[in-house]
């Protein structure tokens, strides 16, 4: 039995403790904003926060998240930084297909939570683990700068 806290709600998992957190979040808890893209931490679509740090939930065993605070897109947009990121994403119409965008936003929120005025180089470093096949990168960059201004 593994105890987890997802978006502030206690959950228990009594299956395979090696199951990646992604599948617990999606299939068991039913929070489907976090996406499956590659299964091997190469695309970032599954990005969630573990105690505030962005992690790839597709390669993080449920057991490794025991006792830690897990935040997904559904709750991340509720705090100040998350709301600013969401507002900028909407203002600049960043999304196209949208499938990767939860992961993009989770990486962006984690960046802005630690670095209120990221440079382009900071953005490259924080965001290059997140693939967008629609290549919305121009707007992702602009939206992070926009959210940064809004938070200043």
């Amino acid at each position, binding site marked *: 039995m593994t105890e987890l806290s997802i978006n502030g709600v206690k959950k228990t998992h009594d299956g*395979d403790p090696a199951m990646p957190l992604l*599948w617990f979040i999606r299939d068991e808890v039913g929070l489907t904003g976090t996406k499956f893209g*590659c299964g091997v931490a190469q695309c970032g679509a599954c990005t969630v926060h573990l105690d505030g740090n962005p992690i790839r939930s597709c390669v993080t065993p449920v057991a490794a998240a025991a006792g830690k605070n897990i935040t997904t897109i559904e709750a991340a947009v509720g705090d100040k930084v998350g709301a600013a990121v969401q507002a900028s994403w*909407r203002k600049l119409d960043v999304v196209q297909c949208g499938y990767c965008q939860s992961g993009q936003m989770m990486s962006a929120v984690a960046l802005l939570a630690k670095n209120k005025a990221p440079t382009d180089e900071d953005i490259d470093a924080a965001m290059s683990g997140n693939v967008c*096949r*629609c290549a919305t990168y121009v707007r992702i960059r602009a939206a992070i700068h926009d959210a940064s201004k809004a938070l200043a």
Partner: protein
Amino acid sequence: MGILNRITGQASKSDVNTTAAPLINVSRRGFLQGSGGLAIGICFGPVACTSEKAAVSAADIAPFVPNAFLRIGADNSVTVIAKFLEMGQGTFTGLATLAAEELDADWAQVSVEAAPADASKYANAMLGGQGTGGSTAMADAHVQMRMAGASARAMLVSAAAEQWKVPAAEITVSKGTIRHAASRKEASFGQFAESAAKQTVPTAESIKLKDPKDFTLIGSTQTPRKDSAGKTDGTAMFTQDVKLPGMLVAVLAHSPKFGGAIKTVDDTAARAVAGVIDVVRVDAVPGVTRAAVAVLAKNTWVAKQGRDALVIEWDDSAAFAKSSVDIAKEFKALAAKPGPVAGTRGDAAAALKKPAKKIEAVYEFPYLAHAAMEPLNCVVDLKADRCEIWNGEQFTTADQASAAAVLGFKPEQVTIKQLYAGGSFGRRASSKSDFIVEATALAKAARAKGVEAPIKMIWTREDDMRGGYYRAGFVHAIKAGLDGDGNIAGWQSRLVGQSIAKGSPMEPFMIHNGIDHSSVEGTSDTRYDIANLQVELHTVEYPLPVLWWRSVGHTHTAYAMETMIDELAHAAAKDPIEFRKTLLAKQPRHLGVLALAAEKSGWGKPLAEVAGKKRGRGIAVHESFNTFVAEVAEVSIDEEGLLTVDRVVCAVDCGLAINPDVIKAQMEGGIGFGLTAILKSEISFDKGAVVQGNFGDYPMLRINEMPKIEVYIVPSAEKPTGVGEPGTPPIGPAVANAVFAAVGKRIRKLPFGDQLSA
């Protein structure tokens, strides 16, 4: 017009935008039943209501459904029914803009809903069935959606005139408010939803569409995407997110080679995984799906664990067994021989006998995977006499028919719930409905074994990347000659590759006289005024499944054409833009985008120097899907050969710009998509098995590699054309030409990979 003739280019260039778009009216009477008897005076919406019976809720009143494309609720909601798949290209927003413009709705009150499968109402006149593809949505639907909005507006006005007892001509509508100025009356759409439904549907002839000068939404940047909210809070629903009561997840082991069969299956270990419910064999549909074994489980992880525990011996005796080196050798050998003629002008052979200068080049294009972020999947809920499919797919009614055929059902026994697609780029427009057929066959096989639960079939990334339906690999062999004045004397292109249409239901519509036009589009029909041109095509018959991939044949033809044109310009010692202008003198829209891109990019002015780097600028112009795009790329190459694409200036002419910001986004995305392909992408084969499996060996462009992009739209009153694909073809040759300008090297084998450091 036949199926897919727009994609194939079989329609003549002059008639593609003149498709009559009849206004389709569904029966309006059925939904009115049961909504009578409500007290007069009840009102809804923002205007104050004095009736004592106002407690009746808006939800109790049937919505106003003026036609198949709109639903106006008593709660003042306007729902646009979208017949096209939203896969990122912004079609929901475009359709809503068109309808809301003529309806004079407030943008905020408009939402969009996907249409069900019903070709009688939702056919794409440019494709034939109900489907999304070939960048046709705005071209097909712009009149239809405007007519739908205008018709609904007329009925709302008529209802208001009747109740207010004023002439309809004195009523105005603006931003969702119906007004009669003289009597100072105003109302929301919701207030007249019920009575508007009782008005006569106006005839198409009686409807006058707006003069473009009166547009408030079309061409505006104040129409943000309708799918933005759900895609930024985790609520947008993709196939991957469907969870039906009791649903099982299926993960499959597929034959690693195309044409392989199952010899033996040992599922002991798979069945021993806790949570595995059953193991189901799914036989191949020859030429459509691969042989597979599916593991059904309570969740995805368990299903995958079960799948990985299967021990399968494959029979590869009839499987495709070539390797990429063999393929390249065969293609190049064919390219050296004359082939069936796909297009000819003048006498290229004679003109190429003794030109003043002659250039010969062979270009190699690899197979490519679409690699959309959402791997392929499909949810099937199969009952004894009906089947419900949940999916995001481009060829709705073709897929419905294919699923019905698998099940022995009539198409109407199969319903499709259209969801967002997490990218597609053509993959979810399967010419043979392959993944729908596989999911349906799986559900049928499972049901035969007593499994009655709905099933979500999930392909892993590796399944998706190795599952075929690739952009076909191609070789182009070009011979081109200049006369003494530096004009093109003759041009011969010989193309070698597989046909998308061959063996698919599209074959009779797409292959004419042995030529699949989608293999040669963009070259045999080039707008360059080349007097002596011959294009030949060798169609290779391999059992590798191939499919359209964002911009189809233009993905390779634009590269070969536009880099060779650049070579010829240099050989003629002419400026590449001036050289093109001469050849395109009769093509005003090409000239328009060329001039705009040249001006905005600062063409002709020296690039800023960067220490340790060589810099270059290159241009390409290409027409696809009746949209014209020119792109100027600026690149830097360091001493070790590392290439950076610094800036891209894009000029696009897509006729009337319905949503300028969506057009910009599609150009940005199309450029990024094309850059991934030319710089990095290759699907290769090792004795028939696909080598690449995930983003480690099939890498994607990342944010740090994305250039600065500027997009400029040519103002135009021409009929609108698509933007989902046309941004992609010019970027490859623009970058290749910039590389030549920087370091003098021509890259003719894609992807670039590390060729610049060699």
